[in-house]
């Protein structure tokens, strides 16, 4: 494979050199065998780098993803390592980014594109809904859309207007899109690798407040897991086992649910926390098994509750587990108001107290 670039005047680099760099860097990361402390940002970054190493058709592009490494630095180092033909900045136009990615997917590439922030993805909505989601269906599978649209989403970072929307329900409502949202560092790696491998388009919703969350993860083990073909799609995780009630959460709300479960444990109540992981496809089995076991459930999501993923979860669970329920399923969600300004956001976001209040409402006296 040969890569020619005229980035700095006229540099012609054989890709073997780039591959050598890549291999060296991969080795450097892989050298640290066993668990190491990693942020979700680094896990996502490593997932893209590994995918780019494995498959020359994987391309990363978007706004500021090249030299800068993305405003959240998730694409840090990719341009340096893989060259500016495989990781590059585009003009500032989200519909253009997604539309061009559709064409690239038609012509043999696997684009991984970044929407800088949740609310800045809206100009691309038509391309996403009318083409990304429908191309496979309208061509009876002749054209696949193996692309990942990465969206940093949700609040909790004191962001100004248009920087904190929970937009997952728009995408989950659209037939033809898969919607992933990791809540742990390990899932950041796992799920992004799987999304890039997928022949279906994946809206990859990254909880931006968790970018800097750290965990001990074993990258070597995660890579082996990937190579073995282990899948998380449609598989919710039991983030914390419990017996008395189920907290169903995803993405940014999972740590909040876990904190609530920890607090409840101190009061002698055992809460199970389910991390949904992929909103589409949804894991009815794991979620309903938990609710059948506990008989009580609270769904937690940052997005507005009305006509949302959280309402869908409640509907699905009551359709399937009605006779096991000791109380109506409750929800703790964002209020149905535009995402608030930084000093008001904590009134809006689901909190441990609000979750515990909801748990208290689950008709324990019966």
């Amino acid at each position, binding site marked *: 494979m040969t890569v020619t670039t005229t980035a700095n005047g006229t540099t012609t680099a054989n890709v073997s050199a780039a591959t050598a760099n890549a291999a060296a860097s991969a080795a450097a990361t892989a050298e640290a065998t066993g668990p190491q402390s990693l942020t979700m940002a680094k896990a996502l970054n490593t997932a893209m780098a590994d995918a780019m190493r494995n498959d020359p058709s994987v391309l990363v592009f978007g706004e500021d993803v090249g030299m800068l490494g993305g405003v959240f630095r998730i694409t840090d180092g990719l341009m340096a390592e893989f060259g500016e033909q495989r990781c590059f900045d585009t003009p500032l136009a989200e519909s253009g980014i997604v539309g061009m990615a559709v*064409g690239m997917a*038609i012509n043999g590439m696997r684009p991984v594109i970044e929407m800088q922030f949740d609310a800045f993805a809206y100009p691309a909505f038509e391309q996403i809904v009318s083409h990304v989601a429908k191309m496979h269906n309208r061509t009876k599978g002749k054209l696949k859309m193996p692309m990942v649209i990465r969206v940093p989403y949700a609040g909790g970072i004191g962001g100004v207007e248009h920087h904190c929307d929970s937009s997952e329900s728009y995408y989950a409502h659209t037939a033809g899109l898969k919607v992933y949202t990791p809540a742990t560092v390990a899932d950041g790696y796992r799920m992004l690798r799987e999304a890039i491998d997928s022949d279906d388009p994946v809206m990859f919703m990254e909880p931006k407040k968790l970018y800097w969350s750290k965990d001990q993860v074993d990258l070597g083990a995660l890579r082996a897991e990937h190579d073995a073909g282990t899948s998380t799609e449609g598989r919710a995780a039991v983030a914390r086992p419990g017996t008395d009630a189920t907290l169903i959460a995803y993405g940014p709300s999972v740590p909040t649910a876990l904190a609530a479960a920890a607090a409840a444990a101190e009061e002698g109540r055992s809460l199970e926390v389910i991390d949904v992981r992929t909103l589409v496809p949804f894991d009815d089995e794991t979620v309903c098994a938990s609710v059948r076991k506990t008989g009580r459930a609270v769904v937690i999501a940052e997005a507005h509750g009305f006509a949302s993923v959280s309402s869908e979860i409640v509907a699905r669970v009551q359709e399937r587990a009605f006779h096991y329920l000791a109380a109506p399923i409750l929800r703790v969600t964002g209020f149905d108001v535009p995402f608030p300004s930084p000093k008001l956001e904590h009134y809006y976001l689901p909190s441990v107290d609000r979750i515990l209040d909801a748990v208290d409402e689950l008709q324990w006296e019966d």
Partner: protein
Amino acid sequence: MTIHADHSAPETAVEDHAADVRTKFGISVEDYMLPARHQIQMVNPDGSLRSHDEQGTEPGHEYPTPSDAELMAAYEQLVVGRRVNDQNSALVRQGRMAVYPSSHGQEACQVAAAMCLSEGDWLFPTYRDAVAVMTRGVDPVEVMTIFRGDWHGGYDPKEHNVGIQCTPLTTQLLHAVGVAHAAKLRGEDTVVMAMCGDGATSEGDFHEALNFAAVFHLPVIFFVQNNKYAISVPLSHQSVAPSLAHKAVGYGMAGERVDGNDLVALLAVMDRAVKLAREGSGPLLIEAHTYRMQAHTNADDATRYRPDSEVAEWQAKDPLARMKSYLTDKGLLDDEATNRIAEHAEAVATQLREGLGEDVPVQPLDLFKYVFAKPTPQLKEQSELLASELAREESAK
């Protein structure tokens, strides 16, 4: 896989381009990018050849006349295209097709857009470009499936490198850009033809596509068929630019205007555009002046927004009559050729009548089959629900 690209630094790119243009055409970049002062027209509406100095050409905008063989092959497609348009409109009236946005009057544009391409190139059409899609080699019945109503598309885009017949305006221009970009990264010399209409130039994706193609220096030809109306709204309500071709210079690409009912001029301009794009000149914008002779679709009433006199005026500029008389005068078209071409057109029309005349049974369970490459449990469940409904209906018969 070989990947190479030349993402030059912007300053270098502009300088290189300027130097290139000066060497190649002996004119400034601005004069190269701006369309010629008049539309390129080679044949008069009466079929007579215009003298060279009346063809609208200027230094840097010179176009050689296409070969006799190319003209004859294109004329044949023109006749077939007209027959197909009229056959389809008849099939709509007979209830065999749900709708047909006819390109009657625009067939020269349709034919030129497809014929200027090579086999490995790509075409990105709109819903009104069925004749272009057919000319590219796609089976006529498969082309019309979208209008018959049993699926949203009827052909495999990869079989003839033709994108879907796109309905949301100008969204397909970005797909064209992406296909060209991917090809360029692999070092292929693919040229991509991206089609849209005059009204569509108001859409945001028109802007984004032209800008992306220019910034990434991609071999995309943006071909605007200016047929004067977006359903009922005239061009004056879409744009007050000197011409749509003038928009090119704002993106740093060359633009040209051509008589869209003059197949000779169209082929000359499009062939050259493809050649330049393949040689690495970057994207180009071509505006063809033509006219939608019929209503937007059968559901539209064109008499509500345009006078008969205007339609009559354009009737006199018909691309078919013009080409026929030009080729006859040139001694290329005799009775034998005329009959042979008419028979070809009739054969295609018959194929359409037969293909669209029969009721193809729909497959309800196909609803679920192609939504995802890897199906979800939820769709499997819904598919089973529909299957059991169908089984019940069947047993009740």
